[in-house]
């Protein structure tokens, strides 16, 4: 067992199997404070599963996941969120029947128990914080719209906004630009560059141009294992990576 480290998040020898199939196999992954890490890999490489493991949606079969040197394997999802890990899903998951304002308000990390929620009052400070985030995600004119009436790209932004307002130390984004138009992509890249300040971010993405525009460090996953790790150029030049992506 390794002793404690400076890493914000440390996955060590993590494995998970579904009916004997090892979706993630003895994976080691370390994320620094303030780091932006992009995870790429062919379909079925286990990218989304890794995020599921970190946020407690899927239970780890073996190995350890530490967040700020605290073992988080076995914690419930909401506990992990409260520790400071936020997660964006692949398809936009927002609350369709609530307005944009209410979506953001619910995501504020306060009044999270039954009593707190029942006697919650919408103070000016809360309204200000919601408006502030709504401006960052280009939705400040749509605060009173029902979320189901937003366009696909706007829904993705709203979900990013819901994470931002949680103010997590580690933000995990699963394909944040999937299904977006070209102009929406550019805006999202700009938004991401803004929100990664002061926090660590893990992004899963397929779109290579988008990855180049934001990546600091890239991890390539293949069959549940790390195939290569490094900056974009070295990863792209790696012959094994080329083989995995182009070989078949």
């Amino acid at each position, binding site marked *: 067992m390794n002793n404690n480290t400076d890493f914000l998040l440390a996955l060590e020898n993590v494995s998970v199997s579904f009916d004997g199939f090892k979706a993630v196999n003895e994976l080691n992954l370390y994320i620094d404070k303030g780091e932006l890490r992009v995870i790429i890999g062919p379909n079925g490489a286990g990218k989304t599963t890794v995020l599921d493991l970190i946020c407690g949606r899927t239970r780890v079969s073996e190995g350890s996941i530490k967040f700020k040197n605290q073992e988080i394997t076995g914690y419930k999802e*909401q506990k992990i*969120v409260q520790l400071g890990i936020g997660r964006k*899903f692949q398809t936009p998951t927002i609350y369709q*029947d609530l307005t944009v304002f209410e979506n953001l308000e619910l995501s504020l990390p306060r009044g*999270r128990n039954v009593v707190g*929620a029942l006697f919650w009052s919408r103070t000016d400070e809360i309204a200000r914080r919601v408006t502030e985030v709504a401006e960052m995600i280009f939705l400040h004119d749509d605060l*009173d719209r*029902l979320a189901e009436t937003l366009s696909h790209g706007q829904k993705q932004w709203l979900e990013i906004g819901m994470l931002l307002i949680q103010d997590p130390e580690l933000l995990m984004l699963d394909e944040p630009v999937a299904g977006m138009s070209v102009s929406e992509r550019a805006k999202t890249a700009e938004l991401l560059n803004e929100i990664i300040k002061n926090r660590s971010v893990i992004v899963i993405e397929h779109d290579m141009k988008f990855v180049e525009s934001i990546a600091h460090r890239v991890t390539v996953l293949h069959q549940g294992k790390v195939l290569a790790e490094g900056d974009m150029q070295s990863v792209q030049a790696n012959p094994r990576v080329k083989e995995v992506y182009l070989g078949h």
Partner: protein
Amino acid sequence: MSGIRTDSRTLELIGFALVAALILVVLPLALDIFRLNLVGKYLTYSFVAVGLVLCWGHTGILSLGQGVFFGLGGYCMAAFLKLEASSAANTKIQSTPGIPDFMDWNQITELPFFWVPFKSLSFSLIAVVVVPAIAAFILGAAMFKRRVGGVYFAIITQALAAVLTILIIGQQGYTGGINGITDLRTLLGWDIRPDSAKYILYFVCCVLLLGTMFLARFVIASKLGRILVAIRDQEERVRFSGYDVANFKIFVFCLASAIAALGGAMFTLQVGFMSPSFVGIVPSIEMVIFCAVGGRHSLVGAVIGALVVNWGKTLFSESFPELWLFAMGGLFIGVVLAFPRGLAGLVTDQIVPRLTRLAASRLGSSNSRHAEPSPAPAE
């Protein structure tokens, strides 16, 4: 500014006022005491429907066992009234005077320990709400903490309704069996049977119902209410917003059950008895139908739904007793197919927009007649 929400809340308040006027003024003036007492009985089902709006309409938890909680509330009330009616003087012909008659018939010679506290009115009134809430808490905690939901939860609540009915019927020495607890007479010496008492009980029932409607409205309008809607939409996402979903579900289920129990207690007081035929699967499903017909998202709708369906049931079964169940089934299917949001949805989605459009066009045409040349300014 905050468009949709303000509109629907104004509409809801208008609905509340109309309901209050209907049950507090119109019906008492229009009906004789026999019919009014029947309306009072229907209104006790409105309590259950209000609870279902919270847990089914807003949170998406379908309970097919609300009769259990209605019954528990009713039985707690009946226990107190029965003990008062079983004074030593009233029961001196029994082999053991001073205990309820059905116990005596079943060779029970001593009041069972769990009946003893029901000698106190304040204990009984607290028990009316607390006993069902505890039952709901146990069931809710066992299910929701394990993330059992949807159809499975509905089936389990239905099983619970069957279990409680069988238990009540089987243990007739302790519960009064299939006949229930009958021959209730006085509440702290005040006779609940004459017409004057029925009037008073009717109004108590109305005021309590309006009170629970406001309580439910407070819950729905709070942030907790929005979390409930969020749970209905995207339960998983709510966890990733940092909430313990199970706790919220348990809370709303307990609240809905306590409200149903209040209805049960008012039922016992107004009808004068309580029996297992208001506990089992069929009444529990009927309660869901009341709520569905009225509109499961709307408090006003649910109250009116319970009133309308029960009224129909009485009228219909007076003329065609054997056809009622078919009519009820047909009504349910019809509502689900034709207007899934119930009567309330019909009003808010169809009638109100049409009226507004009509009013707007009237207003618009009269405006344009007065100020013909200048086009209306934008905004």
